[in-house]
Every structure is written in C-alpha cells, then in structure tokens.
C-alpha cells in the first residue's frame, strides 16, 4: 500500500510538472497581459505536432528530443509574433472579454488546421532509449522520463522566476498590464514588450508540446488535455505569479494522484471539488499581486466599452415592426425550409435564449461565468428524464419546474459564490461546477451515462378544451418559437425597466451603486437566479426538440457558446446575443459540408468579424450612428433652449 501511495504521489508530481510546463505560457499571457487565451491548448497541440514532424515516432536520443522541443518552441514563437501583430495587438484596445472570442476563433482555426495538415489519426511517440528505463532506488523505482519532466519543470520554473520576479522585466510588464497608457508615457515601448511576452509564452508552450510528446497519443483532441488545468493553475497561483503557478500545478498533480487512489470510478472530479473549496477560501489565489487588495478598480479609471440601453426607446413602433417581421419569417419556415435547416434554426433559438440569460449576468450585472451550460443541462435532463418516464405531468408544469430548479440551484450557488468571489475567480468556480455536473452525469447510469438520454418524446399540452399536440416537428417548432419569443420579451422588459437600471449601475461601479443605497450583493444574486432559471428553461425547451440530451450539454465547450454568441452580436446591446446566435448558426450551417476545413473557415470568419467589429456586430452598426450623435451634441443649441425643450429632449434610446 505504501508503495502504491508513493507511486501515486510520484505520478502526481510528474503530472503536475507537465501541467506547469504547459501553464507557464498561459501564466505569462493571461496573468500578466490579461489576454484570456483559450487557444493555448491548441498551440500546445501544434507544438507537439511540429516536434513530431521533426523527430518522428522514435527519437534516437534525449538530445534530439530536447532539440526538437526547442525548435518547435521557436516555430511557435514565430507564430506568436505573427498572431501578435495580426490579432492580439488589435485586441488590446478592445477589452478583455473580446479577446476571449478572438482566441476561441484561433482555437477553431488551429484545430482545423491541425486536422488538415497532420490528419486525424493517432500517433504515438516513444521516449528515447535513454529515458525509456527507470531509476531504481531500493524498493522504489521511478521512470527516467518522469524524472526528466520533473527536472525540466523545475528548470523552467527557475528561469521564469528569475525573469518575472527578480528582474525589472516583471515590474514593467505589471505596469503595462495595469495601465498601458501611462506605461507608454513613462517611455516604455509597450508594443514591443507585448510582443516579447507573447513570444515568450508561445515559446514555452511550443517547447512543452515537444517535451511532453512521449507522454501521450497525438490526436487533434490533444488541445483539451491541459486546457482547463492550465487556467486553474493560473488562478490558484494568483494572476501572473510564476511561483504560485508552480505550486498550483504540483497541487493539481497530487490531487489527480489522490483521485486515482480514492475515487478511481470518477476520474478527475476531485480536482474540481477541491478547486471550488480553494476559490471560496482564497479567491485571490495563493500569491495575490502585491498591492492588489484595493486595486481591482483604479479610482477614476473610466470604463470605455458601452453598456446596454437603460431605457425603453421613445417609440416602440420600429421595434415592433422588426420583431413581427423576424417572428413572421421564422414562423413561415416550416413551410419552406428543409428539415435540416429547420432543426438548426430551432437550436439557434434555444441558444439565443441561453445567451440572453448569460448576458444578463455579463452585460448587465457585470459577472462573468464560465459554466452557464450547467444550468442548461439541469433543465434539459430534468425535462428529458421526466418525459421519458411518461409521468403524466403536464408539459407546462415541467417547464415551470425547470425554471424553479434552475432558480433554486442558482440561488444556492450564487449565495455562496457571489459572497466570496468575483471576476475571474467566479468564472473558474462556475466552470468547475459545470465540469462536476458533467462528470456526475456521465457516470450516472440512471441518466444514460456518456450516451445521455435518447428518444425523448415530444409532449402534448392540455389546455382544457383544446389539446395541442406537439409531437410533429412543425408543431414543436412553433411552440419553441412562441416560447423563446416570450422569454426574450420578458427579459427585455426586465432590462429596460428599473431593475435593468439598477444592474447597469452596479456593473459600472459597485461602490457607487452601494452608495446609491443599492444592496449590490442582493441584486447580483437576483440577476444570478433569474439567469440560472432562464438557462434551465432553455435546456428544458431544447430536450424535446433534439429528443436527446448528452452530458456534453454541461461541458465547458457548451458554456462558451453563449459567450461567443453574446460577444459576437454585442454584449452592450440587449439583442446582441440573438444576433450573435443567428450569425453563428448561419456560419456553422454554411460550412458544415466542408469537413476538415469547416473549423478553419468558421474560425476565420469569427476572427474577422471580431477584429472588424469590436463591440459586436451591433456595435459596428451603432458606431456610425454614435459618432454622428456626439458630433451633433457639440453643435448643441444654447442652454436656455435646452432647458425649454426640457425632458422631451432627453428621452430616447
């Protein structure tokens, strides 16, 4: 037994070091420059493939492996330089959230490109002979390759530690990260530093790809293997802190080891549970930035991105016409659209509702959650499970039940989480909850495990005198349309009413809001509850449409969907998420036949849209009208004139 524990610990250590090697780059970029790079895992994967192309399946010597890793580091650094000039540089003036969508586009492009260049087959690489054996010490034996990884991890750590924490470089980067405007004015070439940091990060990740090659099978799914762990490590360590990341990585590795010993049935779940505990205990990480206690908001630093409208427009007629038009076209679809397309449109409507609910948190309450799909899955499984049981519960009651369930869970989660965390810690916390749910479902036979629940029947609605049968595709589509429109309308009136104004206030400046007498925590919780309820409802509506729900509904990839839709359409607009969902679905429908290319194409389109329209598609539209409006303001008539015009002058959207 002792032997076994020792071995698990050692294994954990190796895993931890591997995580650290991958996460080192993310710590630099994400922690220091606040670019939320989701594509990191994909760059790791490309690094691995590049190294594989250099050495093939059987590296002759350790030296060759190291050489290939370094070479691949340089290749990736070059790629980083390229991307910095073409993408990251533009993202800098846009705001953190939008970097998310751009890097997601990069993720799609990278993954697609990988499939095209290297194919989808498995490859495996053996460790060079010198590392294939093991070092034996008494009754304990350690694989040489593991020792090699541990050694390299420590080496990388020391190198970065010196550069980041012991030299002036770290201070300069910290200054830039917090206030690049001022950093420029004290004579720092911020663009160059940015480029160097990005290159360093890409070098690290490329090298990690090469070094870890012998550890895993090489497939286009490799990008996922360290992605979440890397983010966790950054958060555990404290943003941008190499030492923290190092300790965090070891912790993660050891927890994985413990999980293996204690809960072999559900691999990987312990990490999330412990992570949640950690975040609640120490949301700022092991080593918070020095001076960060009061500096999360610099006094007087204005937010530059737009916020959604806080008032209903003066005249509703334009909006009503547009809404009737859209709903009308959608309603006519079953008559002319083919079944596949109709199916996609139905999905898009549900995703739009999910995205609306996410933006209630993000765009209105200023809370970023990365695990919204969990609520969706909750609703979907609730309804799917009960419909299959044929319990005779009326469908509308099921929908209300899912709303209540979503609200209840959101209340419990929000009550604890909002009290303790905010910002990125909240994001990772919700992400972890989502992953726990996904894993819990996929190991529950009652819920169909990995295969999910299939063959969910479409219900009937008993309205007393009339019985509405929704079993046909067409009928359920109309029902879906009606339900989604109603939800959207309800949310809209919520956001342009007094509650919306409260949320907008606390998003922009929680301290000011508190001193307006707004109980910030309570209203955040309210937004959280409403958002969770609506997300669960979206799931509940979708289950009978798709007639199948799988654990993927709760996965982090599904959680990114509402974020992408929202940001693509424009988070500063109530209708942004809907526009985004439409465009996104359109792109994926149009490119669905392009097999390997499809990811590259849709990623590329996404990227172009984001770079051309920061602030979302709707933001692009309003930019023109806004410049016009502000221009007009300065040509304003005299004061007394305005006073006379009084309140008519100041209504409007």
């Amino acid at each position, binding site marked *: 037994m002792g032997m076994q524990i020792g071995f698990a610990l050692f294994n954990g250590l190796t895993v931890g070091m591997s995580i650290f090697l991958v996460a080192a780059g993310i710590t630099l970029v994400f922690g220091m420059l606040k670019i939320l790079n989701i594509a990191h895992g994909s760059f790791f994967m490309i690094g691995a493939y590049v190294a594989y192309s250099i050495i093939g399946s059987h590296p002759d010597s350790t030296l060759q492996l190291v050489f290939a890793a370094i070479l691949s580091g340089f290749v990736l650094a070059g790629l980083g330089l390229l991307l910095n000039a073409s993408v990251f540089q533009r993202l800098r003036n846009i705001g953190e959230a939008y970097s998310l969508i751009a890097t997601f586009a990069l993720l799609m492009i990278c993954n697609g490109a990988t499939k095209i260049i290297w194919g989808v087959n498995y490859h495996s690489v053996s460790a060079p002979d010198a590392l294939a054996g093991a070092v034996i010490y008494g009754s304990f034996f350690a694989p040489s390759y593991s020792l090699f990884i541990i050694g390299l991890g420590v080496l990388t750590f020391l190198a970065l530690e010196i550069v980041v924490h012991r030299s002036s470089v770290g201070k300069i980067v910290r200054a830039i990260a917090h206030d690049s405007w001022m950093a420029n004015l004290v004579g720092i070439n911020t663009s160059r530093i940015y480029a160097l940091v990005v290159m360093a990060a890409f070098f690290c990740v490329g090298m990690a790809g090469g070094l870890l090659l012998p550890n895993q099978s090489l497939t286009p799914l490799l990008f996922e293997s360290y992605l979440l762990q890397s983010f966790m490590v950054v958060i555990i360590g404290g943003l941008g802190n190499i030492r923290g990341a190092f300790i965090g990585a070891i912790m993660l590795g050891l927890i994985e080891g413990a999980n293996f010993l204690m809960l072999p049935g559900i691999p990987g779940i312990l990490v999330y549970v412990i992570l949640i505990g950690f975040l609640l205990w120490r949301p700022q990480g092991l080593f918070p930035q020095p001076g960060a206690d009061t500096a999360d908001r610099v006094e007087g630093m204005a937010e530059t991105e737009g916020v959604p409208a806080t008032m209903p427009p003066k005249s509703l007629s334009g909006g009503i016409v547009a809404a009737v038009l859209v709903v009308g076209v959608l309603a006519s679809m079953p008559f002319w659209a083919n079944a596949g397309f109709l199916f996609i449109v139905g999905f898009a409507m549900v995703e739009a509702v999910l995205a609306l609910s996410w933006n209630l948190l993000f765009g209105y309450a200023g809370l970023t959650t990365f695990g919204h799909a969990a609520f969706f899955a909750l609703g979907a499984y609730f309804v799917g499970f009960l419909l299959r049981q044929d319990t005779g519960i009326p469908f509308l009651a099921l929908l209300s039940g899912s709303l209540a369930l979503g609200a209840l869970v959101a209340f419990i989660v929000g009550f604890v989480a909002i009290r303790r965390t905010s910002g990125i810690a909240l994001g990772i916390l919700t992400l972890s909850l989502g992953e726990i749910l996904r894993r819990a479902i996929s190991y529950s036979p009652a819920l169909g495990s990995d295969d999910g629940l299939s063959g969910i029947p479409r219900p009937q609605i008993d309205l007393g005198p009339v019985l509405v049968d929704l079993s046909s595709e067409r009928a359920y589509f109309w029902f879906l349309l009606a339900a989604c429109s109603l939800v959207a309308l309800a949310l809209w009136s919520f956001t342009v009413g007094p509650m919306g104004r409260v949320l907008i206030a606390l998003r922009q400046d929680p301290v*000011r809001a508190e001193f307006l007498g707004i109980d910030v925590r309570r209203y955040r919780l309210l937004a959280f509850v409403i958002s969770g309820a609506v997300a669960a409802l979206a799931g509940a509506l979708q289950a009978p449409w798709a007639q199948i729900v799988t654990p993927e509904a709760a996965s982090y990839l599904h959680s990114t969907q509402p974020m992408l839709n929202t940001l693509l359409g424009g988070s500063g607009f109530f209708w942004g998420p809907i526009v985004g969902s439409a465009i996104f679905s359109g792109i994926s429908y149009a490119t669905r036949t392009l097999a390997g290319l499809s990811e590259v194409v849709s990623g590329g389109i996404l990227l172009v849209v984001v770079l051309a329209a920061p602030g979302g598609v709707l933001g692009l539209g309003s930019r023109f009208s806004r410049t016009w409006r502000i221009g007009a303001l300065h040509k304003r008539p005299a004061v007394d004139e305005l006073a006379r015009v009084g309140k008519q002058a100041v209504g409007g959207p």
Partner: protein
Amino acid sequence: MIECSNIYKSYGAIPVLKGISLTVAERETFTIIGPNGAGKTTLFKVLTGEVPANAGVVTFNGENITRLSASARVHRGFGRTFQVARILPCNSVLENLIIALEARARRTERGSLLQLRPSDRTWDDAAEIAGRISLLNKVDIPARFLSHGDRKRLELGVTLALKPKILMMDEPTAGMSPGDRNATIDMIVRVKDEDRLTIMLTEHDMDVVAHLSDRIMVMNYGEAIAVGTLSDIRDNAAVRDIYLGEEIGDA
C-alpha cells in the same frame, strides 16, 4: 446626529486611525482637515461603511450602525461623494440622476412592475436637479465625457437625489477652477439650507473651509489634534505648523 468613539483602523500593519472620536450635531457643517495621508478619507470610509473599523462605535441618531453595510447606511440617510468623483461613466448625466432617484424611490414607494420608463415625476425631478447643479445644458452627454469639475458636480447631484440627511463630501472642490469653486460653495450653502442637511467634508482649500465650516477638526497621523471654530484652528500653533504654514496669498 452622528457620533463615533475610539475608532481604530489599520491596513495590514499600517495603523491609519488611532482612536478618533467625534460628534456632529444636526444641521452642522463639520470639516476635517489635515496633512496628506492623515487618515481623512479612511475616516470617511469607516463612517460610511465602505470599510469596517478594527475597533470603535459609530452611531447615527442614536442607533448603533457600526456593523451596517454601506447601502443600509444610505437607507438611513447617508449621502457620500468621493475624492475622485464616482459616477456611472457610460450613462448620460440625466440617466445618472434618474438611476439615483429610482434607487431612492424603490425604498420609499411601491412602483408598478410594468412601468418600464421612469415616471414623469422622476424625469421632472432629474431635470430639476440638473438645473440645480447647472448641468442642464449637458444632460444627455455620457458622463465619461464630462470634464473634471462637471463630474464632481454631477456626483453631488446624484447624491442629492437620494435626499440624504447627512452629506459626506471628500474634497468636494478639488480640481475646480476658482469660479466653479465659488459656485460650488454657494451651491452647498444653498442645498444645505433647502434640504436641511448636516454636512461633513474634508477639504484642502482654506477658502472653502472658511466659508462653509461651523466646526473644524484637524487630523494628523490618524489622531485628532484639534477641534474648534475656524479662529480656534487658525490660532493653534501646532496646526499652523503641520498644515497651514503661513497663509498663502490669494490661493
């Protein structure tokens, strides 16, 4: 009206307030002055509930409010402006005022859930306040485009919209041009009269201090070293030494 006794506060190992006690009477204007870093802003933060004190008691109209949150204190009649004006940058001047008015109305009256637009009364009130703070000509400019002085005025307007009983202002005229400063002094005197306010403020401009204050407290290194009327303070040698220096001409 507001009273605190033996307030201690430290940030980590740095002691900032060392046993401050004070009493402010109803409808009094009480000014706190002191060198930079004396702890004035920190004292404000403790009194308004933005940060908790390590020790000491704050009472407001006889009620112990030491443990109340900032928003709960606002409900009891606190209004607060900041050293660097805090306004909602993306909303227009008028929207800033409306949000404040609604925040207050929500506590005092039941509105209809279906009424999405602010009521006519709210619009009128907002326009009226905009007039009082002379921002009527800028009502639909997003607040982030306002110049420094205008921001401070807007913040005062937003605070007045809450109809506070006590107004706590941290350097209300910092960064204002002399003309605006005089206008602000007049405005504060006027609203104090109209709204029957008690006022606490910190200020570095002795002109403003002289015009507004009934009583003055001088702080240094987290301790109160003198309390009294303007002439008491002017005659106090220690205060001259650490804060005033010789009087500055016409500044």
